[in-house]
C-alpha cells in the first residue's frame, strides 16, 4: 500500500489520528502471515494420516485383529477429545472463539476417527443389527453435538453431510460435477425437502440466537441442494414438471427477498442464475414441443432466445448491482 494517499486523506480530514497511526504502523510492519497456509497443511496432515490409517487397516485386517484396530482408534479418538475438552473455551450459545488452530484440527481428527470407529464396529459386529441407518444416525447426532459443543463449523459441515446420507443423499463434490445419485424421484423430493429444512434451520438459528453464526453454513448447503435438486427434477419429472416450476420459483422469490434484505450480492447473483436456468428450461421445452414449425426454425428460436435473454440477464444484474450499491450508500 502506498502511504502517500492515506497521508493525503489524513490532511483532508477524512482519516482520524488513530486510523492514520494504525496505517503507519501497518506500513512499517513487514511481517507476513501464513495462517491459512498452516491450516491447509494441518488439513492435509489430518487427511493423510486418517487416509493412510484407513488403507493400512483394510489391507492388514487379518494380521492386526479387530480388537487392536478398535482399541487404537478409540484411544486416539479419546485422546483428541480430551485434548479438545482441556483446551476449549467455556461453552456459550453465542460464537465461541477457537483456542487455536491445533485445537480445530485435533478435534477434527478425533471426530473422523470416532465416526470411522462406529462404522467399523457396525460392519464387523453389527451392533445395530440390520438397522444400517442407525450407524449413520448415531455418528450424525454425535457430530451435531460436538459441532455445537465445541463451536466447530467443519464438524457442522460433516454433520450436515451425514444428515443427507442418513436420508439417502450423497453430498460431495460429485453432486457439483455431475448428478451423482440425484436421478430418482424419491431422492429428488427428499433432497429438495432437506434443502428447504436446512434453510429453515438457518432461520431458526438466527431468530433463536442459538449459535446464530452457523446460519450461513446451513443456508449455503440448503440453497444449493434446493436449487440443484429442483433443477434436476424438471428433467426427471418431465413432461409433468409444472409443480416443480412452482417449487423452484418459490425458492427464487424467497432468495431474492433475502438478497435484498441482507444486501447480499452473492444471493442476488445465484438467485438470478438459478432462475434463469429454470426459465430457460421451460422456454426450450415449449419451443421443442411446437409441432407447427420446422426443426431448423426451432434451433434458430432457441439460439435467439439464449442470445436475447442472456443480454437481458446482463442488464438485470447491472441494474440490481446499482440498486445494492445505492442502498449501501456507495453511489
Amino acid at each position: 500500500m502506498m502511504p502517500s494517499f492515506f497521508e493525503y486523506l489524513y490532511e483532508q480530514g477524512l482519516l482520524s489520528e488513530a486510523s492514520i497511526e494504525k496505517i503507519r504502523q501497518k506500513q512499517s510492519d513487514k511481517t507476513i502471515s501464513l495462517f491459512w497456509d498452516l491450516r491447509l497443511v494441518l488439513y492435509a496432515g489430518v487427511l493423510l494420516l486418517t487416509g493412510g490409517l484407513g488403507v493400512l487397516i483394510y489391507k492388514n485386517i487379518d494380521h492386526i485383529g479387530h480388537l487392536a484396530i478398535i482399541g487404537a482408534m478409540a484411544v486416539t479418538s479419546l485422546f483428541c477429545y480430551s485434548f479438545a475438552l482441556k483446551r476449549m473455551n467455556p461453552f456459550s450459545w453465542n460464537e465461541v472463539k477457537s483456542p487455536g488452530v491445533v485445537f480445530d484440527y485435533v478435534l477434527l481428527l478425533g471426530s473422523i476417527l470416532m465416526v470411522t470407529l462406529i462404522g467399523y464396529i457396525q460392519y464387523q459386529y453389527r451392533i445395530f443389527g440390520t438397522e444400517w441407518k442407525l450407524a449413520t444416525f448415531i455418528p450424525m447426532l454425535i457430530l451435531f453435538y460436538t459441532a455445537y459443543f465445541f463451536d466447530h463449523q467443519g464438524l457442522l459441515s460433516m454433520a450436515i453431510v451425514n444428515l443427507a446420507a442418513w436420508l439417502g443423499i450423497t453430498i460431495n463434490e460429485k453432486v457439483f460435477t455431475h448428478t451423482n445419485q440425484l436421478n430418482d424421484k424419491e431422492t429428488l423430493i427428499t433432497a429438495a425437502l432437506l434443502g428447504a429444512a436446512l434453510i429453515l434451520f438457518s432461520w431458526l438459528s438466527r431468530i433463536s440466537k442459538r449459535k446464530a453464526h452457523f446460519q450461513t453454513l446451513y443456508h449455503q448447503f440448503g440453497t444449493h441442494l434446493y436449487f440443484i435438486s429442483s433443477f434436476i427434477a424438471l428433467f426427471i419429472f418431465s413432461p409433468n414438471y409444472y409443480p416443480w416450476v412452482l417449487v423452484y420459483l418459490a425458492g427464487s422469490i424467497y432468495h431474492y427477498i433475502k438478497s435484498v434484505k441482507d444486501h447480499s450480492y452473492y444471493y442476488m447473483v445465484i438467485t438470478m442464475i438459478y432462475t434463469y436456468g429454470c426459465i430457460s428450461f421451460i422456454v426450450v421445452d415449449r419451443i421443442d414441443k411446437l409441432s407447427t414449425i420446422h426443426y431448423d426454425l426451432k434451433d434458430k428460436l432457441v439460439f435467439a432466445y439464449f442470445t436475447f435473454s442472456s443480454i437481458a440477464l446482463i442488464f438485470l444484474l447491472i441494474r440490481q448491482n446499482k440498486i445494492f450499491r445505492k442502498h449501501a450508500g456507495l453511489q
Partner: protein
Amino acid sequence: MLAYNKDKLDALMNRTMVEEAADLGLISETETASILVRYPSPFFSPRAIVRIGLGIATMIAVSTFFSLILLISGFNMGDYFIQFLYGTAVFVVLEFMIRNKSHFRSGIDDLLLYQGFGTIMAGMYSLFERTSDPYLVITAMITLAAIAATIRYADRLMAGLALIVFMVFTGYLLKKINLDLYFYLPQVMLVIAIACWFVAAKLVTKPNLRHYSHCFEFLMILSLIIAGLVSNYYVISEAWYDSFPGKEFTPFWKYFFIATTVLVPLITMITGFYQKDKKRIRVGSFMVVAAVMTFHYYFTSTPTEVLCIIYGSLLLLICYWLLKHHKPKENGISFTEKQDSAALYEIESMLIGAGVGMITPDHSGSRFGGGSFGGAGSGGSY
C-alpha cells in the same frame, strides 16, 4: 496503448487500498464510507460474485449469437472469414464497453476479450491449417496476439497464455530445426522460465508499468510452476524421455535432473522465506511435495499408506512445533490471522464436509461403506 484510462486506473487503485485498509480493520466503517463517497469509482468494476454472473451471461450471449449467425447465414463454423468478422465485432463491442461504459474487470470485458480472441485465433487456425508448418505459424501468431492483448488490456490470463504458447512455439521451432535439438526442449523451457521470472521480477517494480503489475506477478508464478515441472526428474523421465523410444538419459543429464528436482524447489522456498514472498513460499511448498513424491517413486518401496501415515504425522508435528516455538518477530513470518476472514472459514468448513464427507456403512453390508466418502482413507470401494 492501454485501453483503460490511466488516471482512472490510479483512482481505482486508491479506492482498492482504502477497501483493503477497511478489511484489515485499520480504518472505521464511517471513514471508509465517507472516503468512498468522496472518491467514487471511475469504472464499473463490481465485486467478484457479480463479475462471475456477468461473465456467465456474456459467455452465453456471445456464443449463442455466433451460433445464430451461422444458422441464419449458412456459413460453416470452420470458415475463417466469418470467424475473423465475428471476432473483430466482439472486439469492437469490447472497446465500446471500455470507452463508453467504463467497464473494468466487470466480467463482461473479460469474457468479450477471451471470446473475441478465441474466435480470431480459431479463424487463424482455419486459415493456416493447410500450410506446410501450420502449428509453427499458429503458435507464433497466438504468442504475438496474446502479447498484444496483454499490452492493450493488461489481462493476466493473456500474459500467461503468451508464455505457455511461446513455449509450445519453441518446441515446434526446435523440431523444425533439428529433431535432436527438440530432445532438449525441457532444458530450453527451464531457461525460458527462469529468464521470464527474472524479467517479470524486474518489471514488476517499475512505477510506470504499475498497471501491469498483476500480469508480471502472474508471470512470475507461472514461470516458477513451469520451472518446477520441467526440472522434475519424474516429469522428464516419464512424460518426455519415454516419448522418444531408444533415447536414454546420458549420465550428465540424469544427475542434472536429479539435482534440479531437489534444488529448484528448495531455492524457490528458501528465497521465498528470505524475501517474505508468500506466493513463492506456496509454489515452493508444492514443488517440495512433488520432489518428495518423485524420490519415493524411484528410491523407496515403502507402501503408499505407510508414507501417508508418516507424512501426515510429520506435518501435524511440524505444525504443532511451529505454533508452539515460533516467534513471529524473529524472522517476519507469523501464523496468526491478519484480517477478518469469515468467508474463508465458511469455504474451509464446506471443504471439510465435501472432502471428509461421511463415513457410513452401506445397507448391503458389503465391505465397509457406501462409497465415495473420504476420511479414514476409505475411497470408492471401501
